[in-house]
């Protein structure tokens, strides 16, 4: 890589770092509003990342079939917008969202069932653990076998993947209420459901959101990977796998960029809801979630 590329790379990075460091200092001091400027930091960091990436791919002559330059990916994003949109709808709207909702709900419900009955706890929890790592590539073909080629089987894979994190976190969270808080409920002779609703679920909130956040990215990975095992000819996973086969690597990265944006937005929405719902938790009260 020629010298001036190195120079450009180091200075881009250095500039971004200084900027981010300064700005976050200002935010902490309250000199600039947190909301707007808080978004600027990851953006600047991201731009720096893209600049360095562009410089490296050009400077080191990285073959575009291995790693295209961001500019090429950007061009592809613009050119293939309709394809990318159709894929997004197929994968994200049809597979990820329903699968995520069902998987998280199932994890929650089983966790509560397990919590309610020691019998189920002894019996179901080991089986939950057993299901935890059913590898997607193992279950994806089976789901295709059971639910067909279309989005239903992908949603089923997402369900299987998001179930376990929710189960584990909810089980842990249901134990998070302190003993005096439980004693209070006992003195009211509150029944199981009242205790659950008014004490244990709120106290489990931080754990449940933990799972919701982890699952938001896991669901996307699951749906995309599941599409490698047979789909109609649309979907982000389909496009990525055929794209690699056709060496349309810039289309692949455009698809990855869409996935990254969609996944981050999804995560961001969950994190925002978390802040609203678990506002009372020290991790939120004392700072940011």
């Amino acid at each position: 890589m020629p010298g001036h590329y190195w120079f450009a790379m180091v200075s881009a990075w250095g500039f971004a770092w200084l900027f981010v460091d300064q700005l976050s200092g200002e935010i902490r001091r309250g000199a600039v509003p947190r909301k707007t400027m808080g978004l600027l930091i990851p953006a600047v960091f991201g731009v720096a990342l893209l600049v360095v990436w562009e410089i490296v791919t050009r400077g080191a002559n990285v073959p575009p079939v291995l790693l295209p330059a961001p500019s090429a990916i950007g061009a592809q994003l613009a050119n293939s917008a309709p394809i990318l949109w159709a894929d997004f709808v197929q994968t994200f709207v049809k597979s990820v969202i329903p699968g995520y909702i069902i998987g998280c709900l199932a994890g929650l419900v089983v966790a509560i069932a397990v919590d309610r009955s020691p019998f189920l706890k002894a019996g179901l929890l080991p089986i939950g653990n057993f299901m935890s790592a059913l590898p997607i590539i193992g279950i994806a073909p089976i789901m295709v076998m059971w639910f067909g080629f279309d989005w239903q089987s992908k949603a089923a894979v997402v369900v299987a993947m998001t179930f376990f994190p929710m189960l584990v976190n909810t089980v842990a969270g249901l134990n998070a209420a302190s003993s005096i808080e439980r004693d209070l409920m006992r003195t009211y002779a509150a029944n199981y459901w009242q205790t659950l609703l008014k004490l244990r679920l709120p106290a489990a909130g931080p754990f449940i959101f933990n799972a919701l956040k982890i699952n938001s990215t896991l669901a996307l990975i699951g749906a995309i990977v599941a599409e490698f095992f047979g789909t109609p000819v649309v979907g982000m996973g389909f496009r990525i796998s055929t794209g690699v086969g056709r060496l349309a690597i810039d289309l692949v990265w455009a698809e990855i960029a869409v996935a990254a944006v969609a996944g981050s937005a999804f995560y961001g929405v969950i994190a925002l809801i978390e802040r609203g719902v678990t506002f009372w938790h020290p991790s939120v009260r004392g700072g940011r979630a």
Partner: protein
Amino acid sequence: MTSSTTGTGVALPVVKAEHLGLTFSTNDGDVVALSDVNLTIEKGDFVSFIGPSGCGKTTFLRTIADLEQPTSGTLEINGQTPENARKDRAYGYVFQAPALYPWRTIEKNIALPLEIMGHSAQQQAERIKRTMDLVNLSGFEKKFPWQLSGGMQQRASIARALAFDADLLLMDEPFGALDEIVRDHLNSELLKLWDRTKKTICFVTHSIPEAVYLSTKIVVMSPRPGRVTDIIESNLPRERPLDIRETPEFLAIAARVRDGLRAGHSYEEVV
């Protein structure tokens, strides 16, 4: 809520402990928290528990409330097991620590037992207002617990226990973190309430004057293993102005309590 009389109309004692004992087993050996406690509390009694720190006052209240299980002896509440009494919602409990739920505002914390016991929204609002006024917390309805001072949190937890009508009130140092003036005020409010509603009250305190001022019966406990060393019946009239605290009768009872406390006190032995 529950009747403390049998079908034949004979009043049962509200609390009846016989040879009650409770031992905690810990990583580090056993701790005897209660041993051979015998005590009968009749309906309408105002019983104060006084004794050195760690002598088992809280443990005794918790046992009555079915939050701890005795390891020996018997305990009956309204002639029932503590568990059934709890399920009958026979008592209200003010814990030593405020135990407010951080995700609920103060008014919502006070509403908690009302929600659980199925009071209507309107009834809830009315009771919240009344009890918050009583403990002088009006204006803080919408605050969260961590935004309140220590004493204010304690008052909120008192309001919560008073918001629903239990015949038996278990109060564990409810006024510990309050200044004299508020304390005097709440003392006389509590007496009025007790007089009006004929509740039975078990009251843990470290203040001898408070115990004497409030109680019909003062239970003095001694530390490890927690035993009852003295039970003093008070002959003070039911009507008690604040200045009763200067009368000779009052001071005589106070002196007896202080002696019992000092005698039972392990201080000299341990230090």
